[in-house]
């Protein structure tokens, strides 16, 4: 387990400052779509064994650049040299054959096919003209074993894998091309914090083999953990390429955004709503096949953080509140009135809304206009007498700083991720809800849009709404929430005050803590093992710099670095012990922590 030191900053295998020849040299890459320039004269060099991070806000051109490299798009102008010879990929397969593999941002597997069939899709091994399924499975098993991933069986259908496993299969698929260059577009977007560890290990292996890795991520922590060189894009222009040692997160963000970002999490605002302080949502003894003993209260003006590992039941609680998967026992009350949320309609009518985690699949009708999406809930749930609310919609949209080229008649599929999320928020705000549940509201959106979402949450809280925030990004959760309820294994593991440390949250979430309210690492805290692995687990958020065994030249991480919390990272190594019995232990803790 500890045999593979994560390729953190402590084992940087730093790329020689100037190896004679870059493996890949891109010069002056320009690309337009329908007259809109997406990339403008981008230069990029990749060196063997180097992790090169590509950062920028949404829409900066990261994915497009990556797709040019992968042969999905053709550059309008510019040159690409691979190992000194000029190449021009017209199709992803050409790129793959040349040793350039890509893990795309979108889900890129066939759910109905097996792991092996997915890995070898398009180049199935043949024997005497027929596809040799067994050879394929053997080869896949070997690839998986090579990465210590024997847990995934090659003949499993992808749809029966977990999201993280699916992501790993995508990476294995890219690796199977015997690639010299691998580019990854937000490979961790769908991963839980502790699962990122596996990815770190895989990238470590790749570096050892001399593979060049191009890494796109929004998570500062990953960038500084992994990358030796960072290229910053903004609005399709190259801002600069810098060694990771020479820059800190705050400065990096400033260059991405083009302005200094003073404070990540906006200050609490003066409460002004008349319902501030009232209990607006209360849950008592809620349970179903996946949840048990869920109970908490949220008051007007309060932001309650719902923490826990992925799979701990956070999303399930949100779904149960919103009537997607019902509570079969217990009771829910909104504004003191008991409700039985049997469907989203009932929840909305009661004044409770949910911003779902998967924007495109669950939040938007992509072929419809901004307006149509914005008023969808009003149309569906409150068709009569909603004229006043519909009239308010443009105001809500503009207050969210939603600016689109086509105005509000623009179809939402043409909007960026951040703008799409604003449409989703506007849709729910139009119903004037009293309780707002936000499930991963900032996933995959850029720094600027995140800020807008945070400010909005503060505004809503100040006006008297009760907010439940679910997030995998612990800094966000801790920074925004007034109070935290931590879930583990479908139960409430405990409650923490706002501003608790990430360690405390993780300890509670993994069931490896003594006192749930303890800020200091307890005996069972996985952090205790951190130094042993060479400080791979970077420290907690700023302000706790002592715990940070930073690599050479690293600066303390800035708040807005929304990387996976160190506890999570560590947990994957040490958590196998406490994991299985956490279920048994949680009820007691729950009682202990219950208000």
């Amino acid at each position, binding site marked *: 387990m500890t045999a593979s030191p994560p390729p953190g900053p402590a084992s940087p295998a730093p790329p020689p400052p100037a190896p004679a020849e870059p493996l890949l040299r891109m010069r002056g890459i320009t690309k337009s779509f329908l007259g809109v320039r997406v990339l403008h004269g981008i230069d990029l060099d990749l060196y063997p064994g180097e992790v090169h991070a590509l950062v920028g806000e949404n829409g900066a051109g990261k994915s497009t650049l990556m797709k040019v490299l992968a042969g999905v798009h053709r550059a309008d102008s510019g040159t690409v040299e691979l190992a000194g010879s000029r190449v021009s990929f017209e199709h992803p397969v050409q790129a793959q054959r040349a040793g350039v593999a890509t893990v795309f941002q979108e889900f890129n597997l066939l759910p109905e096919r097996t792991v092996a069939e997915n890995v070898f899709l398009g180049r199935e091994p043949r024997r005497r003209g027929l596809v040799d399924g067994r050879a394929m499975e053997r080869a896949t098993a070997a690839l998986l074993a090579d990465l210590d991933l024997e847990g995934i069986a090659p003949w499993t259908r992808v749809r029966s894998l977990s999201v993280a496993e*699916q992501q790993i299969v995508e990476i294995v698929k890219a690796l199977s091309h015997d690639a010299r260059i691998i580019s990854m577009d937000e490979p961790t977007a769908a991963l839980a914090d502790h699962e990122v560890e596996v990815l770190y290990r895989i990238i470590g292996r790749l570096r050892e083999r001399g593979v060049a890795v191009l890494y796109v991520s929004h998570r500062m922590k990953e960038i500084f953990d992994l990358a030796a060189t960072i290229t910053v894009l903004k609005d399709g222009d190259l801002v600069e390429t810098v060694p990771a040692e020479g820059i800190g997160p705050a400065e990096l963000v400033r260059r991405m955004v083009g302005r200094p970002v003073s404070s990540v999490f906006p200050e609490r605002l003066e409460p002004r709503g008349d319902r501030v302080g009232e209990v607006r949502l209360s849950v008592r003894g809620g349970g179903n096949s996946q949840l048990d003993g869920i109970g908490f209260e949220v008051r007007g003006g309060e932001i309650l953080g719902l923490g826990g590992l992925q799979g701990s039941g956070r999303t399930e609680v949100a779904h149960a509140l919103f009537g997607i998967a019902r509570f079969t026992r217990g009771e829910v009350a909104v504004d003191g009135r008991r409700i039985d949320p049997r*469907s989203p309609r009932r929840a909305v009518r009661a004044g409770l809304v949910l911003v779902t985690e998967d924007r495109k699949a669950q939040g938007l009708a992509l072929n419809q206009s901004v307006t149509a999406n914005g008023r969808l809930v009003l*149309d569906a749930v409150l068709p009569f007498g909603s004229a006043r609310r519909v009239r308010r919609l443009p105001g809500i949209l503009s207050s969210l700083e939603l600016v689109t080229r086509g105005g509000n008649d623009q179809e939402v599929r043409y909007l960026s991720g951040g703008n799409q999320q604003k449409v989703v928020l506007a849709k729910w705000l139009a119903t004037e809800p009293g309780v707002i549940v936000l499930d991963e509201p900032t996933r995959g959106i850029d720094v600027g849009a995140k800020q807008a979402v945070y400010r909005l949450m503060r505004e809503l809280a100040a006006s008297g709404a009760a907010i439940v925030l679910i997030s995998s990004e612990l800094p966000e959760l801790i920074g925004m929430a007034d109070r935290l309820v931590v879930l583990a294994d479908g139960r409430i593991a405990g409650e923490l005050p706002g501003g608790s440390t990430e360690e405390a949250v993780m300890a509670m979430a993994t069931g490896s803590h003594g006192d749930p309210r303890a800020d200091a690492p307890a005996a069972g805290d996985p952090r205790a093992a951190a130094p042993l692995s060479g400080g791979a687990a970077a420290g907690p958020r700023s302000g706790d710099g002592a715990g940070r065994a930073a690599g050479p030249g690293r600066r303390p991480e800035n708040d807005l670095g929304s990387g996976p919390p160190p506890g999570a990272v560590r947990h994957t190594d040490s958590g196998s012990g406490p994991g299985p019995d956490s279920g048994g232990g949680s009820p007691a803790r729950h009682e202990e922590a219950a208000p």
Partner: protein
Amino acid sequence: MTSPTTAPPAPRGRVPGALAALGRGGAPTVALLLALIFAVIATQNPSFFEGPPLMAFAKKAAPLVILAIGQYLVIVSGEFDLSVGSLVGAQVVIAARLIDGEEAMTLPVIGVMLAFGLLVGLVNGLVTTLLRVPSIITTLGTMLILFGAVRYWTGGAPTGALSEAFRVPGRGGVEDLPFLGQLPWALVIAAVIAVAGVLLMRSPYGRSLIATGDNDVAAAFSGVRVWRVRTLAFVGSSLLATVAAVLIGGYAGVTAQVGQGLEFTAITAVVLGGVVLGGGRGTVVAAVLGAVTVEALFTLFNQLYLPSTIQPTVQGVIIIAAVAYAARRGDLRLPERLRRRPDHPTERPLGTSRR
């Protein structure tokens, strides 16, 4: 471009929006095609655009327009309705048998027909949404059931007779108008339904419907009762098929073959209008234009004395060419792909049925 149909009946008020909608997908293609067809008809038979022939054309085209609007509701919600042809046939036969020439029975029987249409729509909708049977199979089954059941009921061939009053909507009209001659009730009914359809699609229900066809999960998560919205679309389709049956029965009386193949004609009309199979895109106006175009095509063949037997070939070529042309135009901006990870337990939680 002097033909009166090049200006679609876009309601006033939000003309820019309507024009923008026309600017995308197949609607301009079908408008162009329709103009072309009418132009050719005009060269062949200039008198076609004098009142009475045009009104005769409208009378004939009205049922298909109504069927196309019904089919549009179902298609835009992401489903199919293959049962409308059989339903039209069944309704005409039911009307003939129950009325049996009695004038006094006309209105009660029309009521029975509407109730029957409602029932068929409910069955189609509920089986599709609640039992999660793909709509193509559901409505294929309903098509077989209606075909067999009505024939079993009447012993294989229609019996009875329609009353004169029953035949008025399909056959009669406002008489002795200048220029037009007769303004057929069928045209009036079709126009009213088309306007109602446009208004419906701007209503909360219509917006929910099109959002459901676009992304039923997102719609469900927004509080849309997907099963209900889709079921209502099927009910709408069946009710409009019933209205079409009244018009067709009124137009031509009872024959054993009434309604056969109308489902494919209606789907063709809707698709020709640029409405996307699979849901979420397209307008009522486009569906209406598609229906008028299909009827105009039949008329064109006739005006050209095209041999009966070769007509299907030309029809097939034109339909494929028109849809290919529209596909080209719509292709300029590739839509962002919606790819869902398969293992979201919440992927398809409520009464959703897209498959």
